[in-house]
C-alpha cells in the first residue's frame, strides 16, 4: 500500500480477547468514514496489508504476559507518535491479571503440563508499566463511541472529551432507579469509571466494575455499605477481583479484606 498524506493508524494486540479492537469494526456506520480520515496502516484483524511505521496513532489492546511481548511493546512505542491503550487488559492487566494474586509456583504446579513449550510471565501487567502511554481508554470492552471520540480528538489535536466520574452519575442522568437503594442489590457503580452508559443498572443488575475504578474512588465506604447489606467477605473480594483486579484502588480494597 502506498503512503498517503493522511495520518496513519495502527492497531496492536497483546494478551486479550480481541473485543476492544473489534469495537472499531463494530463502528459499522462510521467505519468507512474513519478509513477515509486516516490511513489504516496496520490492523491485522482487518487487513493483510501493512505499512511500515512510524505511525501517527497506535491503538494498543491487551496486557503484557510474555517475555516476547515485553520486548515488542517497546518497538510499538518507538514506532508511534501517540500511543493509546484501549480496554481493561491494556489499562489494568485484564482478567488474566488474576494470576498476580497467586503464588506463581503454586499456580504453575497446579496447571502446567509441558512448561518447556510455554513462555509466560508471572504477572499480567498494563502497558503503562512498560512504556509511556499518551491516553488510556477504559472498559471491558471499551465503548465504541468513546473510541471514535478519542480518534476524533487526536485527529483534531484536542483533548478527548471523556468523563472520569462514576457510573452513578451516568445512571442518575438516565433516571434509572438505584438498584442498591431500591432493591438492595450490591452495585459497584459508586466507585466505577463511567463510559458504559450504566447498562447493568438499566437491566436491573448491579454494576460489576468492568470499566475499572473512577477517579478517587471511595472503595472502603462502599465495602462498608455492602457488608451492612449482608455481603460476605469472600464475595466482596471477588467483586473487586474481576476484569480490573490489579488496578491500584481495586487491588488495595480486595487485599484489605483478606485475612
Amino acid at each position: 500500500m502506498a503512503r498517503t498524506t493522511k495520518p496513519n493508524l495502527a492497531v496492536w494486540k497483546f494478551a486479550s480477547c480481541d473485543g476492544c479492537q473489534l469495537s472499531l469494526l463494530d463502528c459499522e456506520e462510521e467505519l468507512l468514514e474513519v478509513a477515509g480520515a486516516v490511513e489504516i496502516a496496520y490492523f491485522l484483524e482487518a487487513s493483510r496489508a501493512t505499512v511500515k511505521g512510524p505511525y501517527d496513532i497506535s491503538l494498543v489492546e491487551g496486557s503484557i504476559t510474555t517475555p516476547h511481548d515485553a520486548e515488542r511493546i517497546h518497538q510499538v512505542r518507538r514506532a508511534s507518535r501517540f500511543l493509546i491503550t484501549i480496554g481493561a487488559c491494556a489499562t489494568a492487566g485484564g482478567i488474566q491479571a488474576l494470576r498476580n494474586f497467586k503464588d506463581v509456583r503454586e499456580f504453575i504446579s497446579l496447571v502446567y503440563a509441558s512448561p518447556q513449550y510455554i513462555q509466560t510471565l508471572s504477572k499480567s501487567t498494563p502497558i503503562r508499566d512498560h512504556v509511556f502511554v499518551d491516553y488510556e481508554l477504559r472498559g471491558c470492552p471499551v465503548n465504541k463511541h468513546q473510541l471514535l471520540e478519542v480518534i476524533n480528538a487526536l485527529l483534531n489535536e484536542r483533548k478527548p472529551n471523556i468523563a472520569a466520574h462514576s457510573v452513578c452519575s451516568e445512571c442518575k442522568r438516565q433516571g434509572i432507579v438505584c438498584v442498591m437503594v431500591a432493591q438492595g442489590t450490591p452495585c459497584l457503580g459508586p466507585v466505577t469509571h463511567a463510559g458504559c452508559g450504566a447498562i447493568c443498572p438499566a437491566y436491573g443488575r448491579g454494576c460489576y466494575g468492568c470499566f475499572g475504578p473512577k477517579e478517587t474512588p471511595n472503595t472502603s465506604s462502599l465495602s462498608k455499605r455492602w457488608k451492612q447489606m449482608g455481603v460476605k467477605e469472600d464475595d466482596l473480594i471477588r467483586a473487586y477481583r474481576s476484569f480490573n483486579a490489579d488496578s491500584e484502588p481495586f487491588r488495595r480494597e480486595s487485599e484489605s479484606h483478606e485475612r
Partner: protein
Amino acid sequence: MKGNSIKVDYLARVEGEGSLVARFRGGQLKEVQFKIFEPPRFFEAFLRGRSYREAPDITARICGICPVAYQMSAVHAMEDAFGVKVEAPIRDLRRLIYCGEWIESHVLHIALLHAPDFLGYEDAIQMARDHPQVVQTALKLKKVGNDLVALIGGREIHPINVKVGGFYKVPRRRDLDEIEERLKWARDASIQLAKWTASLPFPHFERDYEFVALRHPLEYPLNEGRLVSNKGLDIAIDQFETYIVEEHVPYSNALHSRIAERGAYLVGPLARFNLNFDRLSSLAQDVAKEVGMTPPCRNPFQSIVARAIETVYACDEALRLIANYTQPDKPALEVQPYAATGHGCTEAPRGILYHRYRVDEYGTILDARIVPPTAQNQKSIEADLWELIEANADLPPEQLQWRCEQAIRNYDPCISCATHFLKLHVERE
C-alpha cells in the same frame, strides 16, 4: 520449491495471533505447522474458586467475537449441574440473542475478513472501492445482528444480561417491534449476500472430512442437541471427553483435538449445514438450493456460502422467535446450587463450544474445562494445508502463501478462543 519455505509470521484477518510454517526439502513438503502463539490466559485455572454465577461473564472474556457462545455454554453447563430446565419464552430469548451473534459474526467474517481473499483484495476497505454496495450492505446487516445482541444483552461485546437460569431483565413485546422491521430487511439482504458469495470463484478442493455438529430433534442447532457426525458419532454431550481427546503439541499454545477412534474432524457452519440441512427453515433451504449449495459439501472454501445461508436462517429464525414471543412473568428461574458436575455444548458461530464445570455445595467452581471450536479445527486446518500445498507447489510463492492464508480463514479461526484452555494436566511438586 526446493529447499524453500512458506512463512507467515502474523496471520491477518483472523481473531488472535497465529502463524503458518511450511517447510520443503528436496521439493518434498516436509512439515506444516499452523501455530497459535497467542499468549495463554489460563481461564480454566482462575475459574477455580469463583462462583457459578460468574462463569458466564468471566468466560465471555475469552472471546470478544463470540461472547454469547461462551455465556450460553456456561449457563447450560451450570443448569445441567443444578437440574434446572429453562423453557420458552426464556429459552426462545436465548436463541434470539444467539441469532444476533451468528448474524454479526458470520457477516463480519464473510464480507470483512474472507471475501477479499476470493477477489484478490488485501482487505474489505480496498474491496469497498470496487464493490461499495456489497460492503455497505454487509456493514448494515452486521449492525442488525449487533443491535439484536445489544437489545437482549445490553451491549454487543460482552453482554451483561445473561445469567444462570435466564436473564436479569426480559424485553417487553413492543421493545422488539423496531428490530423486527430491520430483521425483515436483513433477511432479504442476507439472501442477496448468499447469492453473491455463491458467485465467488472457488478453488477446486475437497476432502473427506468427519463433520461434527449438534443435532436437535426439531431445530437447527444452537443451544442444545446430541453430538453427531457423518462417520457414526452420536453421543450425549456429557460423553464429550470420552470420545474426543486433546493433545499438546510443542509449537502451539492450543491443544489439538481429535476423535479418539479416528482423528481429525471439522466443526462450524459447513458441518452444521451438512448434518442439519433438513432442520433449516424452508426459506433457508430454498436459498441454498437456488445458489447450488446442497449437502454434502466437502469444499472448505465454500464454507463462506454455508455461513451466508446460516445468516439467512438466523434472520428467519429471529423473526419467527419474535413473532411467537410473549413476555415471561419472571426473567429467570430460581437456581439452587449443590455439589455436582455439569456439561454444556452450544454452537458458536465457528462450531461447537464445550464447557464442563465441577462445583461444590455452595456453587463454587472446583474445576473447569473449556474446549473451543478453533482448537478442534486445528488438525483439519493442517491437513487442508498439506494437501493444498502439495497440489499447488508450482504456484508462485506469493500466490501459494495467500492461498494458504485463505484456506486457514475458511475456518474463521478464533485464535483468542483457542488458546485459553491450554490445559494442563496436574503436576504437583
